């Protein structure tokens, strides 16, 4: 019981620290938020302009919503995915990683704390963007299954947390270049997951990759729920897959991180100086 409270406190400690960091780096956060909003807006405007671009009649309402779902879901997933590894990267730069790894807490608590923060942060940021973007377009959500969409997003959070933990291994081992590799992985996911288009338009050889990316199932599920108002039952395959991916990636990621940590401790890679 006491041990559990200790771990819970530590997990909160990670969230609290990251919140404090966000406060100190607030200018950067605002800049980033503005950039993300501009990005979401310009993508969504493609939908609004599709009649003029193609010279043909299209369902602008549906296309706009299609793109908006893509850009917002992608925004959320990338934050959840990136932030965990960026947290580790930051600790390596500051040299505090030795102190964090020395502390009497489980690695699960450590990574769970970092993940918890990235989920909350990603959710708030995406909600803010949605609030602003929604003001620019007429969005008709009357036929949408919002509850179903929320379920998909929840399942997506689990699997992307797992992906984030796996990604965090890179900066642990490669403080200089690790996070850059994380960005490369993210870019590949962006292309193969059908963020702005159905994956069926991808060349055949690329399509198997789309099945490997959890983002594909998130986007499909979200679109079915919001665009087509699909009932929860119809969403279950996507939700199930996402939970399954998370159930493998989360514990697997923590385990792998532990292996990487042992390797770093054996080879003396944790220290920065002194």
């Amino acid at each position, binding site marked *: 019981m006491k041990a559990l409270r200790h771990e819970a406190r530590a997990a909160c400690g990670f969230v609290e620290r990251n919140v*404090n960091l966000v406060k100190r780096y607030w200018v950067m956060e605002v800049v980033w938020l503005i950039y993300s909003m501009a990005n979401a807006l310009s993508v969504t405007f493609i939908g609004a302009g599709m009649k003029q671009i193609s010279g043909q009649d299209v369902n602008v309402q549906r296309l706009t919503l299609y793109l908006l779902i893509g850009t917002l879901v992608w925004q959320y997933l990338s934050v959840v995915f990136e932030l965990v590894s960026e947290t580790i990267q930051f600790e390596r730069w500051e040299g505090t990683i030795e102190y964090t790894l020395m502390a009497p807490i489980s690695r699960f608590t450590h990574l769970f704390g970092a993940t918890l923060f990235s989920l909350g942060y990603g959710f708030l940021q995406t909600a803010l963007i949605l609030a602003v973007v929604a003001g620019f377009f007429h969005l008709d959500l009357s036929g949408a299954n919002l509850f179903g969409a929320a379920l998909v997003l929840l399942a997506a959070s689990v699997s992307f947390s797992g992906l984030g933990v796996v990604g965090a291994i890179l900066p642990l081992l490669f403080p200089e270049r690790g996070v850059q590799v994380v960005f490369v992985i993210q870019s590949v996911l962006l292309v193969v997951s059908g963020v702005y288009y159905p994956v069926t338009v991808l060349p055949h050889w690329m399509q198997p990759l789309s099945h490997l990316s959890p983002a594909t199932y998130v986007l499909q599920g979200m679109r079915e729920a919001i665009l087509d108002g699909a009932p929860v039952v119809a969403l279950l395959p996507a939700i199930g897959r996402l939970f399954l991916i998370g159930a493998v990636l989360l514990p697997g990621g923590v385990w792998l991180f532990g292996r990487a940590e042992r390797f770093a401790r*054996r080879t*003396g890679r944790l220290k920065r*100086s*002194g």
Partner: protein
Amino acid sequence: MEAQAVTALELRGAHKTFRPIRWPWRRHDPPPAPGESGETGEADGTKRAVDALVDLSLTVQRGQIYGLLGPNGSGKSTLIRVVSTLIIPDRGEVTVFGHDVLREERAVKRLINRVSVEASFFKKLSPMENLLFGARLYGLDGRTARERATTILRRLHLRERSLWEPMEQMSRGMQQKVAIARAFLTQPILLLLDEPTTGLDPRSKREVQALVTELRREHDATVLLTTHDMQEADELCDRVAIIDHGRIVADGTPAELKARVPVEGREATLEEVFMALTGHGLGEPQAAGDEA
């Protein structure tokens, strides 16, 4: 009546060689000839294995302040990292109050804390925010952490105001004080201090030394301390070990060590002992980690 001696820290044949990592995707130069080891060959960029600790044994009794002296690159920080579970030794056994650092890692972590030469912090955060984070990892609640942090930092004469300003605005010495507070905050029963007073002004140095003896007195703590300040070692430490090229070349009380080195007409200073035992006389250049 003498209290029963309890072993706080024991290293038995601890050995650590740092080898360059051979990533499968990188080309490598042929490995060095057997028996050869040394530092990074700056000129050609090839790395070679370094024996940082050579089958080293050491025992620290509970309540002792144990000093580790040695030239740069002699393995002091490596030894401290091995005890703090940050480096896994190649062989040998290391126990903290009977707990093995590898097999009972968590138990060991609960008992220790460490101050390193460089004060590693989130530089944009204030000392208080940094300390609060540190404290939470050790299961302290916010109020206790804040109270203890304020008390310690006040004792080290850190201005109240700087508690809430970003660490990057503080001088090195001030940051070092916060680093010391971070370790004291959790009241470790084995405190590992790696050059805690390097970079501190004479008064601050005294304050830190007083804090160390106080921690021992009031919390029955044991301290393992490295320093390049011979006077500090002489005054603060019950026992001192001199380490060179990863080996202990001498150990004993400061008085015992001084008696070992004969100087005409007076007692040797610890500095003279250091010079004599590490084999590098004044003016004689010595590179860190030449072949062991």
